[in-house]
């Protein structure tokens, strides 16, 4: 199926009333959780996963995806207006965006963010449409050996790109892989690490894990200190950009879009990295770098475009290879599985309406977001007055019901408590939970591919090195590992993340 044919089918799918409605619900919810500090898209998607069971597969994915990229928009709104990035990728937007707001230019800052994001989202969606089919065709040739090497590459690359301690990220991945082995072994049927409890034979539930580590742990973080919400919301007077503004943001938007489109495909925090890199690029190429940090509109245009383009292209590995590149995509793998679809290169040929419908819906969703965000900005700002004392019990209530409704199994709710406490202490000890979730989702795949490859090769372990694609992937993984631990590169990487 060609790209145009695919897009046609996608339009047909995405424009049904139900899908339009759920796209709107998704992006509106996404904007809301992006605006609200203390709850992010990961926890939201995890809590909503169980209840998407009753929806059509494409409808459920359209909504869940909408939450993800909608949160990118919402995060920048609070970053600009109250210097509080609701999302990690909006952290750089806050630097110059909030400065602009303090100078009475909140409107143009928000307009730049929304229009830049829309443009970048459109380009990102086109890139996704163009590359999805060729990549999945190539991936159809992959055997278990190639998949094993690809998963290894993905896991290593995700730590190479992360900020913070490489060793800790690596340990979190390994812990995630181990937690993923809980349950019955697929080959022998032996129950592993189940403490003899039948309820654990099916393994730990990744929804519980995500809700615990991203929802409950975050609540505890917020309850640590006095919740200082001195919300001094900057006034939004006028959204229009001047001619001068338009001239100044054009190049940064284009550069940011390009960077984001490429970096978004990378595993790990691709969209966060994209916004940081874009900011430092803009600062470097600017003719007046002294303005950065004091309300340079380029410092909003570039990173905002970059993170939104990246949010779109981070779907590439999921839709073409069936492999998640970050923790949100890991949850979407779960959404596919709940619907009885195994994500992989076959999906685009077996379920073309689903893949193309999702792609087109992302463009429509971006359009909704511009409409939702610019005229309705006051509504989102008002959401900030919801007291945290009401918000977090609501998260606990929704998490309990959502996780219990997965197979009406009380263990899924106990697991939320366990992973909430574990995740909280690990975060306190400087270990981010995202690599753990990625390891947890990829662990069973890694083991399956490893053992299947060895069975096919009759126990010959050189199969990973003699098959050329697998060899290339492993060499890349080794290179990424060296890069990750090389002190010089690490310092450089920290520069990028701390360049504020």
């Amino acid at each position, binding site marked *: 199926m060609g790209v145009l044919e695919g897009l046609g089918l996608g339009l047909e799918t995405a424009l049904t009333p139900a899908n339009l409605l759920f796209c709107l619900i998704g992006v509106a919810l996404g904007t809301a959780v992006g605006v609200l500090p203390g709850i992010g898209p990961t926890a939201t998607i995890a809590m909503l996963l169980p209840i998407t069971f009753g929806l059509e597969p494409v409808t459920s994915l359209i909504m869940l995806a909408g939450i993800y990229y909608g949160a990118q928009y919402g995060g920048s709104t609070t970053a600009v207006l109250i210097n509080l990035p609701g999302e990690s990728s909006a952290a750089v937007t806050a630097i110059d965006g909030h400065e602009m707001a303090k100078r009475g230019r909140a409107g143009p800052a928000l307009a730049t963010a929304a229009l830049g994001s829309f443009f970048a989202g459109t380009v990102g969606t086109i890139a996704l449409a163009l590359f999805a089919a060729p990549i999945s065709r190539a991936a159809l040739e992959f055997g278990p050996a190639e998949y094993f090497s690809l998963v290894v590459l993905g896991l290593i690359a995700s730590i190479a790109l992360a900020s913070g301690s490489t060793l800790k990220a690596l340990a979190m991945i390994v812990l995630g892989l181990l937690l993923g082995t809980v349950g019955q*072994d697929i080959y022998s049927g032996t129950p*592993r690490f189940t403490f003899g409890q039948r309820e654990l034979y099916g393994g730990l539930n990744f929804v519980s894990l995500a809700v615990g580590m991203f929802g409950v742990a975050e609540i505890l973080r917020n309850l640590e200190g006095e919740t200082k919400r001195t919300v001094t919301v900057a006034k939004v007077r006028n959204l229009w950009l001047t001619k001068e503004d338009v001239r100044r943001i054009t190049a940064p938007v284009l550069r940011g879009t390009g960077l984001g489109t490429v970096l978004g495909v990378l595993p790990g925090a691709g969209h966060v990295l994209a916004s940081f890199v874009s900011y430092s690029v803009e600062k470097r190429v600017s003719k007046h770098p002294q303005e950065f940090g004091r309300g340079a509109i380029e410092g909003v245009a570039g990173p905002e475009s970059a993170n939104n383009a990246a949010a779109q292209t981070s779907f590439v590995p999921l839709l073409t290879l069936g492999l998640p590149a970050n923790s949100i995509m890991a949850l979407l793998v779960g959404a596919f599985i709940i619907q009885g679809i195994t994500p992989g290169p076959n999906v685009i040929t077996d379920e073309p309406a689903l893949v193309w419908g999702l792609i087109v819906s992302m463009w429509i969703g971006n359009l909704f977001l511009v409409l939702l965000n610019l005229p309705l900005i006051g509504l989102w700002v008002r959401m900030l007055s919801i007291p945290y004392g009401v918000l*977090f019990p609501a998260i606990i209530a929704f998490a309990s019901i959502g996780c219990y409704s997965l197979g009406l199994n009380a263990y899924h709710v106990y697991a939320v408590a366990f992973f909430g406490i574990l995740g909280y202490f690990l975060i306190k000890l400087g270990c981010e939970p995202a690599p753990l979730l990625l390891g947890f989702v990829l662990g069973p795949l890694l083991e399956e591919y490893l053992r299947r490859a060895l069975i096919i090769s009759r126990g010959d372990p050189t199969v990973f090195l003699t098959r050329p694609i697998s060899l290339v992937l492993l060499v890349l993984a080794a290179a990424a590992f060296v890069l990750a631990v090389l002190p010089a590169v690490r310092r450089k990487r920290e520069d990028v993340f701390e360049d504020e």
Partner: protein
Amino acid sequence: MDWRGARKDLLAGATFVGFGLAFAITASTYEVGTALRMGPGYLPLVLGALLVLLGILIAVTGFVAGEGGGIGPVPWKAAGLLVVALVFFGSTVRGLGLVPSLLVTVFLSAMAGRRARVVPAVVTSASLTALSVLIFVIALQLRLPYFGPWLG
């Protein structure tokens, strides 16, 4: 070298060593097999050992660098209340039914707030329970009975 300064990394290392050991020791009781014919215990054993190694490395590098800082305040009361709230829901939702179970769970979590008081927590609990019933049972048609057999 400063033991106190590296407390964060030492604790992180110890946590990973603990998990690694627990997984590796348990895995060694399953059929391990060989690298060429892996049994169910093989991969967890290897990964467990790797985690122990990483944990030691984290602790050692933290100890040598002597930085990392303390772990800061921990909201013990909140952590305890949230755990009790979740465990209460899991263990009673079938017996008591959704409404009573959720009322208690939300009340307990609302009490975890720093300046929580009983009356606002009751109000929060009642309104959030009503909202949840509206969203999950009425709108999304989740099959959870309002009241369970224990109250019959």
